């Protein structure tokens, strides 16, 4: 504990917010260096936070807060009552019958860093634990309530790639119909992330923490490199392509198709196939190919068809922004949802619905929780503040 004494002044100054970026990094490195340091820091941090509580207690006047609350709900009561009536009248359960399967189109985002192309595509089968050709949202695994701040879960169903930046600086482009799960912040000794679908990783260099992507049967570990992994559901085939740096591909569990670790050099491609032994090939690696072309070349081989059957399943939004939620719902129910981005800016949603729920019902719930209004216009829903 003695060694922490010299750091205490720095730690307290850190808590007071009085350090510059460089000093903050030093402190953060120290904190992350070992669990004792972290414990010591956490203790100081808790204390720091605790002391502020007394001012809050002194300042809070619960009676006036209650009055404020009463006036807040007074207006809302009327509004939501009107909305409810309107809803029930306007949306008979017609959506559930006319729901059509949706094919998500892949739209390539315009700004893609060169030489960074990591595509993980895992079968939806793995995502949902069912057999191939299974329904898209059939849930056979229990998923926990996503209330912890610890596990971060990004899902993209917006129809086009979505950028995600991690705390360590890693940049991820998450393709449509894809999701990633990881602990944030990463553990002190490693960076693990599970991917279902397709994503491009630009891994921030951190030689103290290997970056590993778990995708189905294999894991791909990189040390500050750029690579792609493609794994599609229907074919049970996973391809890892290395553009720059070094990666090692390992089986999650030793199996007959892959029973050892495989190291790749740039320009090498590793193919894992459920039906035969894994192999390593060379692929064309040239700077002249524009990244977009590379991607569309990769993508053209992709054909993520969405299974038609969606009965008996549920879906869940995990802290997604409302515009993402609406986009996904619009795609799933094949209905237009019109909203002004400004109105739903910085609104998020965590919730779970049955697929048999009507879209009107779902939107009603979301709107209540976010103080929005919903109206029906021809074949579209209009959402506003």
């Amino acid at each position: 504990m003695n060694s922490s004494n010299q750091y205490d002044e720095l730690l307290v100054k850190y808590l007071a917010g009085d350090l510059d970026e460089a000093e903050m990094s030093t402190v953060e490195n120290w904190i992350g260096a070992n669990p004792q340091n972290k414990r010591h820091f956490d203790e100081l941090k808790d204390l720091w936070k605790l002391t502020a509580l007394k001012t809050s207690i002194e300042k809070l006047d619960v009676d006036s807060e209650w009055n404020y609350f009463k006036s807040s709900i007074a207006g809302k009561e009327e509004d939501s009552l009107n909305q409810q009536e309107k809803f029930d009248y306007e949306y008979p359960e017609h959506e559930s019958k006319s729901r059509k399967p949706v094919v998500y189109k892949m739209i390539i985002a315009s700004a893609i860093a060169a030489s960074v192309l990591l595509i993980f595509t895992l079968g939806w089968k793995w995502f949902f634990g069912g057999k191939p050709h299974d329904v898209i949202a059939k849930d056979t695994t229990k998923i926990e309530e996503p209330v912890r701040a610890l596990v971060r879960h990004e899902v993209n169903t917006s129809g086009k790639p979505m950028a995600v930046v991690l705390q360590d600086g890693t940049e991820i482009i998450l393709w449509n119909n894809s999701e990633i799960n990881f602990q944030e912040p990463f553990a002190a000794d490693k960076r693990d992330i599970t991917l279902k679908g397709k994503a491009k990783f630009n891994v921030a260099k951190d030689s103290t923490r290997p970056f590993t992507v778990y995708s189905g049967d294999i894991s791909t570990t990189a040390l500050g490199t750029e690579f792609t992994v493609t794994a599609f559901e229907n074919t049970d085939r996973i391809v890892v392509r290395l553009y720059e740096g070094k990666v090692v591909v390992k089986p999650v569990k030793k199996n007959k198709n892959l029973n050892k670790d495989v190291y790749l050099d740039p320009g090498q491609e590793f193919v894992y196939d459920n039906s035969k032994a894994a192999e390593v090939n060379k692929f064309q690696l040239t700077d002249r190919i524009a990244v977009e072309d590379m991607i569309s070349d990769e993508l053209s081989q992709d054909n993520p068809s969405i299974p038609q059957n969606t009965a008996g399943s549920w879906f869940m939004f995990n802290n997604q922004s409302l515009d993402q939620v609406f986009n996904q719902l619009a795609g799933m129910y094949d209905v237009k949802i019109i909203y002004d981005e400004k109105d739903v800016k910085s609104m998020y949603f965590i919730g779970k619905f049955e697929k048999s729920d009507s879209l009107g019902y779902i939107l009603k719930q979301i709107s209540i929780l976010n103080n929005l209004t919903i109206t029906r216009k021809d074949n579209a829903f209009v959402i506003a503040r």
Partner: protein
Amino acid sequence: MSYESTSDESSSHQFNFDEAAFETFFKQHFTPLCLYCQFKFGFDLDLAKEAVHTGFIKLWETRHLIATGSSPKSYLYKIVTNNCLDMLKHEKVRRQYGLFIRQTTTETSHENSFVSIDVKQLQADINTALSGLPDQMRKIFELSRFEGLKYTEIANRLNLSVKTVETQMSRALLKLREKLSRYLSLFLVLLFFSLFIKK
């Protein structure tokens, strides 16, 4: 039957929130919830109030959805937690509170164990601990913690060197640790626990 705030968690009362019952519920939990937001997410009081108010509104609006026998406290708790997470995602908040977010604790214990704390007791204990500090040390600490002054500003105001401020600040926090140790880590869990269990 309206909600009795003296009931314990396990009883399966019909939570029929008429306004009077809700008012009692509100006044009982508003402060502890604000403290929770501040403690767990590093929010200032205004942000915490916003998260808690929004939470109570949502609770009010979805009160019919609360299943009999479930606890509106834990439901409200979850709503408020989600609100805080939402707010953290907001750019401005993130920049301001980046400090706390960079070092997210893995103590998820706060979440489910944020129960009944005796708010008055906590206030008294913190005040006692602070007044137990040597005068200048306390002044320095309060200027930093409660008025948000930078070390250099404190040094200027009190005519001291920044180094002195640094030393005094860390000694202050360590002294406070001694006095408030029972509120830390494990105890903090339990004490916060009593918040929900008691009254």
